[in-house]
């Protein structure tokens, strides 16, 4: 049972009309979700990983020429995030396409290996011991940085609970075919109907894990402006409302590619969301995200203007 004092939530203060404006985030039409790219990356799966990653780096160098609009956005985003200019900014821009190709290649090959083998690709795991002290349901919070899917999968492995991954409806076919299918305790939940949140409520009540990505605005009334690298950007408040309502912790998880081509998994202190504290918790999450991106600017894989992602 929930505490009646929790009745006054952030939801009540969100203007209902905003949900009906029909705005759509830019990333919905993103070219990188196309099945062809998954197929191409999967086709390289027969190569030994070092050779595959070398090839991915080469593909990344070519890709930046094939996507001039995305390249321009990446460049301007990096300019804000790093303050770099000139040659340094050019290098960072190339680095985003290179690192994306490498992480994407792992996403559809290495990530498909049995869960128990994933750790072979991880050089460091920081904070994962915190999971041992968490009981009941939890929300895994990741973002489109590094190999986010591996972060979620490792968390699912360590928490040893069924995991429900919330994804955009148009992503689910490619994800189920090229990334992973149901069966290893991970289930994709398409964000198609407003009643999807009921599935998540029930899963958390059963003590299971809900995995969401907390960096992309949805074009709904839940989008909340939070400073990100000094500028207001919309981030989804929904995960924080869910955590407050169910009284479950939000567990941030990042999985970043290192210079040795192995990953470092970091799980910062779980976020507890107090009644009325949804926006404060969101700000804490965005600060964690900003800190991670500041250290790994070439692994920020949002190829759109994060500060203005909504198109009418």
């Amino acid at each position, binding site marked *: *049972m*929930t505490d*009646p004092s*929790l*009745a006054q*939530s952030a*939801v*009540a203060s*969100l203007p*209902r009309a905003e*949900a*009906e404006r029909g705005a759509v985030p830019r990333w919905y039409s993103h070219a990188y979700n196309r099945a062809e790219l998954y197929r191409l990356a999967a086709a390289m799966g027969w190569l030994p990983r070092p050779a595959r990653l070398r090839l991915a780096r080469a593909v990344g160098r070519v890709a930046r020429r094939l996507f001039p609009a995305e390249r321009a956005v990446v460049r301007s985003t990096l300019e804000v995030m790093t303050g770099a200019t000139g040659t340094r900014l050019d290098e960072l821009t190339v680095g985003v396409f290179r690192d994306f190709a490498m992480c994407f290649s792992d996403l559809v090959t290495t990530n498909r290996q049995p869960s128990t083998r994933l750790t072979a690709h991880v050089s460091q795991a920081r904070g994962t011991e915190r999971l041992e002290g968490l009981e009941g349901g939890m929300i895994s919070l990741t973002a489109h940085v590094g190999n986010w899917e591996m972060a979620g999968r490792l968390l699912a492995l360590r928490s040893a609970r069924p995991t429900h991954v919330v994804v955009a409806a148009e992503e689910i076919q490619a994800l189920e075919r090229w990334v992973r299918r149901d069966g290893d305790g991970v289930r994709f939940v398409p*964000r198609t*109907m*407003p*009643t*999807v*949140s*009921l*599935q*998540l*409520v*029930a899963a958390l*009540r*059963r003590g299971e894990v809900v995995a969401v990505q907390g960096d992309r605005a949805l074009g*709904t*009334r*839940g989008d909340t402006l939070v400073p990100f690298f000094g500028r207001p950007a919309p981030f989804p*408040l*929904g995960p924080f*409302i*869910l955590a407050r*309502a*169910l009284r479950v912790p939000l567990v941030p998880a990042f999985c970043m590619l290192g210079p040795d081509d192995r990953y470092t998994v970091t799980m910062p202190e779980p976020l507890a969301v107090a009644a009325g504290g949804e926006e404060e918790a969101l700000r804490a999450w965005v600060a964690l995200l900003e800190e991670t991106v500041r250290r790994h600017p070439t692994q920020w894989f949002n190829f759109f203007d994060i500060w203005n992602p909504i198109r009418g």
Partner: protein
Amino acid sequence: METDEILDAIKALLVERLKFDPTRAAEVTLDTSLPKGIDGSLGLDSLDFIELAMGIEERCGVMIDDQEDLAPHFKSVGALVDFITSRQIGA
């Protein structure tokens, strides 16, 4: 709880928890659809359904922890009343 009591509880949740206008909530009948995207529905979005589920647990004493798809039970006020009634009987 009887059907009328559950219906009143849902109306109260709409006002107190989801911040609906009391006049609009008073017009709600068993035939009223809940999710947005349906003509004449209350237009509830995913955030509303979280609050509604929590409110039902709190006020009606049922636990929302089902493995089955809950969407049909939250399609309309009538379906929701039936769901709550069945859960109370089964409890």
